[in-house]
């Protein structure tokens, strides 16, 4: 998938491959030998970590999804029983629907992030660094801390949001205790807190757009908006694609914001739960870990599926 240009870290000036050594003659045999060993040494520890903490647990989870798990680890083989139960469980479709709704709302943040990033990239913008910090702050803040603040903002009786709405004559709902509104409220926070990350990635993509293009566009009489539409957005599509992939994956893993904003004893939680919350409930509240493992596998597969689908669709809209 070479069409994704490196959005972070690598600037066009960085030497690529062996280009930096051009003219220095062909590398010696010895050099090649060292090159063969060094990468392994550097990547080895990371690979080991990935194997132990990612691949092994995935295999474990896959195995335990086929078992009936006793209270503290005693298990019996159950075949595909957990999966049969899972696909007959209305909670699965409910939580899948909620997760998709959440993902859709958070994705609305990407056009916004593109627009804001291009504004921040305007030459001569004062306090640009300050704005960048402000937009990025929510992303680095602890999700639980973010959730606690928003919980207060969303409070139906004493919250800032409803107070503000009241000033313009709108009576706000009890955001986090009304079934439909609760998930939207969580998604608004999700959108808000992922904006900073998207903008940083997109800003890096913007730096890669040659200024000559804008100069040429201006000579042709293109307005700012026209430049944005015809130069910025098309050339930014690789970064937009990357941000979309990451946002979709993290949205499918919604748990902490939901749990912390709604609170574990919220009566609307069962109707507003996400896939990962469903996993948590079965695994750690009802203590049915075999079933929870099946849910985890489902989430794993569906994220893989959606990501593969996006890679397939990218050919239609991402500029190479």
């Amino acid at each position: 998938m070479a069409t994704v240009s490196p959005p972070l870290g690598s600037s066009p000036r960085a030497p690529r491959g062996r280009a930096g050594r051009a003219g220095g003659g062909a590398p010696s045999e010895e050099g090649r030998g060292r090159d063969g060993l060094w990468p392994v040494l550097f990547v080895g520890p990371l690979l080991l970590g990935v194997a132990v903490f990612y691949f092994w647990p995935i295999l474990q989870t896959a195995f335990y999804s086929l078992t009936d798990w006793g209270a503290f680890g005693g298990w019996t083989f159950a075949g595909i029983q957990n999966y049969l139960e899972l696909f007959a469980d209305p909670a699965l479709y409910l939580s899948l629907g909620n997760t998709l709704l959440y993902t859709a709302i958070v994705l609305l943040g990407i056009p916004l992030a593109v627009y804001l990033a291009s504004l921040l990239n305007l030459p001569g913008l004062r306090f640009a660094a300050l704005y960048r910090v402000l937009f990025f702050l929510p992303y680095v803040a602890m999700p639980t801390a973010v959730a606690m603040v928003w919980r207060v903002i969303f409070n139906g009786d004493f919250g800032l949001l409803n107070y503000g709405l009241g000033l313009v004559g709108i009576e706000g709902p009890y955001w986090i205790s009304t079934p439909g509104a609760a998930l939207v409220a969580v998604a608004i926070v999700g959108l808000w807190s992922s904006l900073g990350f998207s903008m940083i990635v997109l800003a890096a993509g913007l730096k890669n757009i040659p200024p000559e293009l804008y100069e040429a566009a201006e000579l042709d009489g293109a307005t700012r908006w026209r430049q944005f539409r015809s130069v910025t957005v098309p050339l930014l599509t690789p970064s937009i694609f990357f941000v979309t992939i990451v946002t979709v994956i993290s949205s499918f893993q919604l748990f902490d914001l939901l749990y912390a904003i709604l609170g574990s004893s919220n009566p609307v939680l069962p109707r507003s739960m996400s896939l990962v919350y469903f996993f948590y409930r079965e695994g750690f509240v009802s203590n049915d870990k075999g079933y929870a493992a099946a849910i985890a596998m489902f989430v794993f597969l569906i994220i893989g599926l959606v990501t593969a689908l996006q890679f397939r669709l990218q050919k239609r809209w991402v500029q190479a």
Partner: protein
Amino acid sequence: MTSTSPFARTRRALVATAATAAFAVILSGCSGGNAGGGSSEYSAPEEDLSAKITYGLWDQNQVPAIEENIEAFNEIYPNIEVNVNVTPYGEYWTKLQTQASSDTLPDVFWMNGPNIGLYGSNGQLEPITGAVDAGDLDLANYPEALVDLYNVDDVQYGVPKDFDTIAIWANRALFEQAGVALPEGDWTWEEFQSTASAISDALGGQGIYGAAGGMDGQTTYYNTIFQAGGAVIDDGTSAYDTPEAQAGIQFWTDLIASGASPTIQQLTDTTGDQWFTSGKAAMYWGGSWFRSALTDTELAADVTVLPLPEGEQKASVIHGVSNVVSAASKNKQAAQAFQVFLASEEAQQMQGDAGAIIPAFDGTQGAFTESLPDANLQVFLDALEYSQPLPVSSNSAAWNAFETELLPQAFSGERPVDEVTAELAEQMNAALAEE
């Protein structure tokens, strides 16, 4: 790439925890599942026994009193080193499950009612019968309802450490402001309802309510169910579909419908104790543990405690933490000695003097009532007489989740009480049958 996302982190942590637990089980050769036996080896250790043990608990506020306990314990056993391990309540049970699955439970740790069944019936805990037979523990010193709570299949696993009962925390200033007299002595459901309504009527304009309920069974609807003469679990099946339990639920539906209490939605956004501490509710059904929330507040001077109103009978839910010893402890003798010491009158008196909790040992509770002399905290101790244990089963969390989901639909008037409780009983019975 995704590891940069905070959402990803939590899920990974969860999956990793589950998987690590799984891994540990394989290593330990599927050690779980041995059923708890009735006998227990116990002998008081020699004073020069040398060991290192850990003590797992969830309340940082109680650590100072516990350190005092450990100091006194070390005067007898100077060579037993006790390490206190505090895990916040929110993560305590998740962590404990993982520890139990990998045979790495703390040697001594706190246990509560909703979880005792799970750990007791799965052979994770060391029975205390040995210490009782040896005469080092006398269960007659502790409230009977609590002792019973930690008895699983006729085997006693825990020694009560403290207890809590439920009563009404009242704001005298709001009663005065509303011109409503404070009730004296016992009162009925009707009197409670009319008092709460009178305050709401008088002060509603300022956003003040007469009473704040809540969705927590222990402090609210379990009490009214017991007061109506009903039960939550009866002989291993749900009793929610009985007229008594329905009357206990109806109590809260009526209270909310009359405007005497904030609605369920309001109580979700702002919990009952928050309504009370911010001076927006005159009465709050709460546990004795709420005492520590009043420390150094302006409100403390206006607070008094009223007994719960009486339905068909008096009732108040009692619950308490107990100290248990892990069956897999490698220093079991030292752990049991520490468990026995924590249950002693001496150690319990120190806990009581610290004021945060009501110690379980009879006669050590005076310090608690004196910690707020004008608030009549004695009500909580009097409630012992008519208290009933918190309803629990082997896997309480499973059906507690159904209560949280369904009962609010009755409290809000969205669906009739009998319909909701019938559905709840059905779901709860399915969960109980799986235990």
